[in-house]
């Protein structure tokens, strides 16, 4: 047996020593299992952690109204050896008995994920250190918006009372802070955002003494659109417009993730041409996101030139997206079954001009902004994330790789045509804010390289007649899907996006879609990174974590 197989066998041995309904292989790097008793969860989690599965990607609940149960899904990952375990167990649905052991004491990264499940499904996690509602506003407290029997219309009827209640609770919070803090001391609770120029729609409740930060409690949910609920109201094609609104900066890759899950349940294999198009479009979207990410970092430091330069460059890539799909930002260009449109030869020429523009500009950007001495002075020792923290808090993407952790879904679990593309992990060493900026820039260069490879391949195959760019882009996906369940992971611009899709029999729309988005974990880190620093470091660290509120709140 090879090394990987032995490691996988180890996980299976652990799982089979407990009462399970099944233990089976799922895809190449997953083991799927279902526990008979939810009370075993904590022990199993502990055993898995000792075996190397230190990271919990997300916690997802599915409400089965007809079977009167709630199914919990835990996604354990070992980022280093690429072994993963998908663990399920049932818990009762009645709100009084609906509880399960919290794994937060073992896995620090599960903290907010469990709070989210608590807010959406009303599941109590016993042993959770800080089980408060998250994302939802005060009018949803003690309610269960994502359960199938929640009456949204009835909730909307009291919209005025609800808004008053939110406003009131803000006022009460302020009053309580006044009482709690020593009136003669210098402690204050400061609201950073949602109107701060660098914040975006997020509020950090910064407890500070003078300019020293004591602790940070992020208040999120300002752009909560309940996307996970919204997709269940649309058909499988119409759902792409909700999925792409995870974040506009990189909308293609989130759709790729969703479409892969649908295709897996439908049992459809897409064409090679569509696979390569997904790579090209995905990397273009990644570039356009990274350019904004760099700009965001420098904006936080008060320098807007890099944004102007990047926007200029980005426009060429958006022109390609516009020619291809008809829209610059909300492209809706990936559909279950392939990519939505055929490819015209002039579009590849447009892509080439964008690549040329990048090649022409990149040396200037590197010289002025990446090797910038002022930036180095400011950011080189700030917001340092160690590789251990990456694993414990389930950080991913740019942030994880800047700390030197070799993780990239494109290589770990290749999707689309990434298996045929030559690429390697791009990493930095120290994990500081500066490294995260450099990481973004180097990933842009990597993306350009990938686009060039994919573009060359497409051009060659079109010339040899193997690809028909007008007809090959789609295969038919049946309108009604069978009962099934799938997960798919993609490397999004900000990191790993995990889509967990559940369908009922003869389904015309998703029954449940859980989207695990990277910013959620990264925002969780803020308190850890900034406690003990000064107020002026908040924008910089926040900007360097490459957070987008779109996927933070969903």
């Amino acid at each position, binding site marked *: 047996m090879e090394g990987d197989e032995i490691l996988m066998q180890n996980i299976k041995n652990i799982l089979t020593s407990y009462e399970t309904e099944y233990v089976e292989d799922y895809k190449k790097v997953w083991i799927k299992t279902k526990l008979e008793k939810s009370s075993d969860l904590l022990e199993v989690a502990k055993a898995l952690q000792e075996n190397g599965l230190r990271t919990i990607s997300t916690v997802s609940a599915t409400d089965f109204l007809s079977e009167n149960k709630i199914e919990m899904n835990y996604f354990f990952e070992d980022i280093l050896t690429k072994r993963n375990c998908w663990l399920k167990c049932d818990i009762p649905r009645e709100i009084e008995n609906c509880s399960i052991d919290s794994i937060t004491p073992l896995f620090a990264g599960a903290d907010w994920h469990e709070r989210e499940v608590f807010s959406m499904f009303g599941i109590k996690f016993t042993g959770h250190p800080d089980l408060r509602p998250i994302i939802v506003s005060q009018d949803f407290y003690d309610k269960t918006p994502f359960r199938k029997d929640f009456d949204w219309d009835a909730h909307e009827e009291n919209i005025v009372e609800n808004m008053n209640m939110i406003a009131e609770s803000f006022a009460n919070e302020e009053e309580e802070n006044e009482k709690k803090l020593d009136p003669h001391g210098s402690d204050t609770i400061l609201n950073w955002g949602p109107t701060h120029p660098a914040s975006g729609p997020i509020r950090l409740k910064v407890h500070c003494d003078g300019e020293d930060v004591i602790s940070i409690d992020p208040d999120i949910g300002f752009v909560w659109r309940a996307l996970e609920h919204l997709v269940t109201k*649309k*058909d499988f*094609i*119409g*759902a*792409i*417009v*909700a999925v792409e609104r995870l974040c506009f900066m990189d909308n293609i890759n989130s759709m790729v993730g969703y479409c892969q899950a649908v295709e897996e349940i439908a049992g459809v294999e897409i064409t090679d041409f569509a696979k390569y198009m997904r790579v090209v479009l995905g990397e273009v979207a990644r570039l356009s996101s990274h350019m904004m990410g760099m700009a965001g970092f420098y904006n936080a430091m008060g320098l807007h030139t890099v944004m102007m330069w990047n926007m200029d460059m980005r426009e060429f890539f958006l*022109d390609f997206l*516009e*020619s*291809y*799909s*008809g*829209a610059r930002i*909300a492209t*809706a260009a990936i559909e279950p079954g392939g990519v*939505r*449109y055929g490819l015209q030869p002039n579009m590849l020429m447009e892509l080439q001009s964008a690549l040329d523009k990048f090649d022409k500009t990149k040396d200037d950007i590197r010289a002025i902004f990446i090797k910038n001495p002022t930036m180095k002075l400011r950011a080189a020792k700030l917001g340092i994330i160690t590789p251990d923290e990456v694993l414990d808090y389930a950080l991913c993407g740019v942030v994880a790789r800047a700390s030197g952790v070799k993780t990239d879904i494109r290589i770990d679990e290749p999707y689309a045509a990434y298996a045929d593309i030559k690429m390697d992990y791009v990493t930095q060493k120290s994990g500081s804010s500066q490294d995260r900026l450099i990481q973004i820039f180097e990933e842009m260069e990597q993306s350009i390289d990938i686009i060039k490879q994919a573009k060359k391949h497409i051009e060659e195959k079109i010339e040899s007649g193997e690809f028909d760019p007008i007809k090959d882009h789609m295969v038919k996906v049946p309108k009604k899907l069978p009962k099934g369940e799938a997960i798919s992971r993609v490397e999004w611009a900000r990191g790993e996006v995990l889509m967990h899709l559940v369908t009922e029999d003869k389904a015309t729309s998703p029954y449940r879609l859980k989207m695990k988005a990277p910013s959620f974990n990264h925002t969780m880190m803020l308190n850890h990174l900034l406690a003990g620093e000064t107020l002026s470091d908040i924008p910089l660290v926040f900007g360097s974590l490459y957070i987008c509120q779109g996927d933070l709140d969903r």
Partner: protein
Amino acid sequence: MILELLKKVLRVSKALAVKSPAQKDVRYQTMHPTERFRGQHTIDYETCIGCDACNKICPVHAITMKELPFKKQNIVPEVNLSVCIFCGLCEDVCPTKPEKSIVLSGGRYDMLSGGWHADQEQFWVHVDIPQSYIDSRLEEEEASRVKKELAAKKKAAEAAVTDGTLKIQESQTGMPDFVGENI
């Protein structure tokens, strides 16, 4: 003093001769014209078969179906542009060939230029059907209905003639009028 001033004026006025790099007035002309640009819808009421597919797929319910006084093909889509997210799915599902009945690609991008719209009605893509078209469709329907009725009568008559003798033997009552006349 005056010379200096003149020099300055001369220097500044040189700029008038230099063409600005921004050559396009983006209110009336797009910077990057594309065939597939998803803009304002055009709806062809003549080819629309009233299948309701665009209405069903619309993820934001921007489409409402206008009812027409016909028996068949009696609905036609109308789009509320202030709700529409321009995803283009309605165009994708439209089954008419070769031209789609509802089209956004290549549509107008400048739908909001020309000032503020005080009235919500101006955000709608309405289908204005001329009375002459309605009349002609109604006439057509009437004509085809009459034709069908005649054909049915004729068929019934023929059938009656062939089994006529048999039926008369079976029962003398309950016979349709025209059968009686023929006999």
